[in-house]
């Protein structure tokens, strides 16, 4: 028998499981699909992943974290449908600069083992505000101006990419 000897209990279990899945994938782990190449080679186009929405509930985002950043504020109790996926390289109050393709934080070279491609980005120092994080993609093969990057407000950071 597919439904077991106690159909009522089976039905209840199915409903509970569905409710648990619904809650988990709406409020804890948000499923996402990568669209674009700005996080290559770490995350490929069409790659499926999850965002941990509770990651920054107890502590603040850290350097090196890959996060999702919302555009507009969605309705209460609903997750944004479109987000940016970027890596945090600069923390609040820090100065971020690009010289010869390398990142300098407060004038010191930032080791970035996750980068696989060389680039020649140059950009004058930018100071992050008290609630701002500097975010950038891992794929820096395109010109600096064509890569979406910059300072994200803390309240725009939705969560940390899980895998």
């Amino acid at each position, binding site marked *: 028998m597919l439904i077991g000897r106690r159909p009522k209990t089976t039905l209840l279990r199915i409903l509970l499981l569905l409710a648990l899945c619904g809650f988990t994938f709406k409020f804890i782990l948000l499923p996402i699909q990568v*669209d674009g190449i700005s996080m290559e080679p770490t995350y490929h186009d069409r790659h499926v992943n999850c965002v941990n929405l509770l990651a920054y509930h107890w502590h603040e985002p850290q350097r090196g974290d890959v996060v999702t*950043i*919302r*555009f*507009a*504020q*969605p*309705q209460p109790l*609903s997750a*944004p*449908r*479109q987000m*940016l996926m970027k890596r945090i390289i600069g923390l609040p109050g820090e100065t971020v600069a690009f010289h010869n393709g390398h990142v300098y934080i407060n004038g010191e070279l930032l080791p970035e083992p996750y980068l696989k491609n060389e680039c020649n980005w140059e950009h004058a120092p930018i100071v992050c505000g008290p609630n*701002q994080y500097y*975010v950038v993609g891992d794929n820096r093969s395109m010109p600096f*101006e*064509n890569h*979406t*990057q*910059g*300072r*994200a407000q803390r309240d*725009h950071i939705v969560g940390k990419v899980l895998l």
Partner: protein
Amino acid sequence: MKNGVRLVLLALAAGLAFWLWTVLFPSPEKLVLRKISQLAATACISAKDSSLARAGKATSLVGDFANDAEIVITATEIGSRTLSGRDEIREAALGGFATLSALNVQFMDTVARVGADQQTAQVTCTARVNDGDSKDFGIQEMRFRLKKIDGTWLITRAETVKTLQ
């Protein structure tokens, strides 16, 4: 038992009445959001649309804006561009619709805030735009300001918002 059935029926009737009320007398937020989704639908053109249909859509699109409306677009490729008044908006829409083979516009994560005077509103959303069936698309945070003019919500300002500073 009879009372239980009566109670259920009463609850159903109350629910139906409430639903009817919201349909017949929508809140200002709903009206504003409806206007924005109507704008997105009007801005979509398919490759099959004739020149006449496109011109009609451009005219219809302009109808969603106030006479003195402003559109401010800031993008890496074009810099900052401002369209002021219905005539400039119509011209830009006609030109754009004639040039593009197809256009698909979606406004997502829309949130409407109506002012205390109930005569002005602001909508923030994420615009997703692509040229028809193409896989490539552009994403842009947008902000709209609307005003109730002669009983109709019209857009007075539409602008792009820079998500990353």
